[in-house]
């Protein structure tokens, strides 16, 4: 058996792939946070809860309605997005003129409400969600077995991330969005409906979280608590990367996932804290974040 630094290649590659899978979730979630922050100036604390909601919806669809994984992937994100639109219209829109901190506090309260509701219904134990037939099994790459589902998570997240990047940077709608981020009043004066764009942005951002939740359902356990610990790591990812650039969030998310995976191989005790340690180092060396701009 070939070894690298005394670690079997199989184990190393396995953890590397797991790291990339987690990194994909970090990337999609921090991308959603960054899109929302750019437009609304609000850090969406409910992001983790909405990610959990995506996974729970997939599980509920399977159990109550007999809808399979592909239907869940198609339907859950728009449903989560709709919930987001309702949240934005009924609550968030009243906070834009206030200190940004109130947005954080409100969404924190919403996260508690959502988590508590699902917990009172389904308890804290994880619910099993099986991998769809088309994606079960593994590719034999010669030096390692690559489970098809992990490959699917990485590829589809990357596609969604780059789709979002294309939408914002290369299309007319994206140009409006960037204009509204830069100067909402002037954009409004040009006849663009900025409040509508803000609403859609929030809906789109949380739909990304819902999408990540469905992707995570077969890979991790579906439980009402799955979002709350993840969101704190994603916050650290956002602090490390800075929210200035979309590509920055994607690279930071994937990169940190890989670092976390490698830590699991070489020094397992630190694997749950390594992202936070990197955050501390980045704060010391480059306080604005790797891709951030001082504002």
């Amino acid at each position, binding site marked *: 058996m070939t070894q690298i630094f005394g670690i079997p290649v199989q184990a190393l590659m396995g953890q590397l792939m797991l790291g990339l899978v987690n990194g994909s979730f970090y990337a999609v979630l921090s991308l959603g946070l960054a899109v929302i922050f750019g437009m609304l100036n609000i850090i969406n604390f409910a992001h983790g809860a909405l990610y959990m909601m995506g996974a729970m919806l997939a599980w509920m669809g399977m159990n109550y309605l007999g809808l399979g994984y592909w239907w869940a992937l198609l339907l859950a994100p728009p449903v989560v997005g709709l919930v987001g639109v309702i949240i934005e219209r009924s609550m968030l829109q009243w906070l834009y003129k206030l200190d940004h901190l109130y947005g954080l506090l409100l969404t924190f309260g919403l996260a508690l409400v959502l988590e508590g509701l699902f917990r*009172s219904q389904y308890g804290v134990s994880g619910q099993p969600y099986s991998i769809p037939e088309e994606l079960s099994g593994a590719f034999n790459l010669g030096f390692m077995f690559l489970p098809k589902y992990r490959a699917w998570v990485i590829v589809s997240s990357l596609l969604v991330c780059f789709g979002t990047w294309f939408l914002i940077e290369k299309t007319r709608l994206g140009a409006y969005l960037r204009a509204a981020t830069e100067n909402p009043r002037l954009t409004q004066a040009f006849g663009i409906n900025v409040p509508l764009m803000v609403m859609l942005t929030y809906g789109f951002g949380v739909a990304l979280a819902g999408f990540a939740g469905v992707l995570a359902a077969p890979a991790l356990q579906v439980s009402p608590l799955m979002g709350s610990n993840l969101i704190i790591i994603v916050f650290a990812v956002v602090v490390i990367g800075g929210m200035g650039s979309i590509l920055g969030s994607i690279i930071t998310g994937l990169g940190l996932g890989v670092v976390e995976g490698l830590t699991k191989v070489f020094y397992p005790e630190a694997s749950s804290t390594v992202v936070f340690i990197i955050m501390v180092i980045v704060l010391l060396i480059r306080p604005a974040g790797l891709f951030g701009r001082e504002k």
Partner: protein
Amino acid sequence: MNKNLNLIGYGIGFVLLLIAPMVVYPVLVMKVLCYALFACAFNLLLGYTGLLSFGHAAFFGTSAYVAGHALKVWGFPTEIGLLVGMLASTALGYVFGSLAIRRQGIYFAMVTLALAQMIFFYFLQAPFTGGEDGLQGVPRGKLLGFIDLSDDHNLYYFVLAIFVFAFWLIYRTIHSPFGQILKAIRENEPRAISLGYDVNKYKLLAFVLSASLAGLAGATKLLVFRFATLSDAYWHTSGEVVLMTLLGGLGTVLGPVVGAGVIITLQDELSDKVGSWVTVIMGAIFVVCVLAFRRGIVGEIAALLKRFSGKAPQR
């Protein structure tokens, strides 16, 4: 005139607290006092300096664990145990503060939250904390070597003394020139800088003071319940202290005390009746506070009084 009225108000409150254990279960009042102290320490930072720390549970929990270890394993006297716990949270506050003030606004909140989560994971794995079981059976010991604190009433007056001392300290801080500078930073940081104040130094000092007092609250809570658990250091606890302060009234002297009283009583009443709905209710209070009730209970009352008397409310 107004100052005298205030003094009378505090006097009545103090007397009520003195006789409280004869009417109410003392452990509940002690729990309220601990969390009230925690919330007051937090309010010093958010209400008076404008810094939202989402990681204050780290100081609360660290102090509880360290004080618990000092009392149980090293067999320190009670007072020294509390001081050691406080010292630990003060040191941690210095480290967190120096890192977090490098970023502003919501980034500050995210950095403190992430740092606190790191401490949480450390406690989860560290051998001396007892992992999921927590640190149990911590002896309360004897105060000054002869007052037996295992009696709830003796402990109550000790806890009350700690609370009154810390509350006085915070009150003095808020009304000192130092407190005025903190308020100036909250209102307009660039202007405070242009007036020649070393803003980061003041922020750090406020952060360390707040962490240290939050630590005192954590160590006192340890004495009351004789255990320290992971939930002391969990982010839910950080959220709770934000909620208490917000509900009572940001930037009011008494707000955090009122908020802690309401939240703790509510949790105590509801926890066996509705189970995990408590989280939903706490979240809903959060939402309502932010949307419709941003001044909090004490802030609203002060605003009402102002409207009736036509005078400025006393902060």
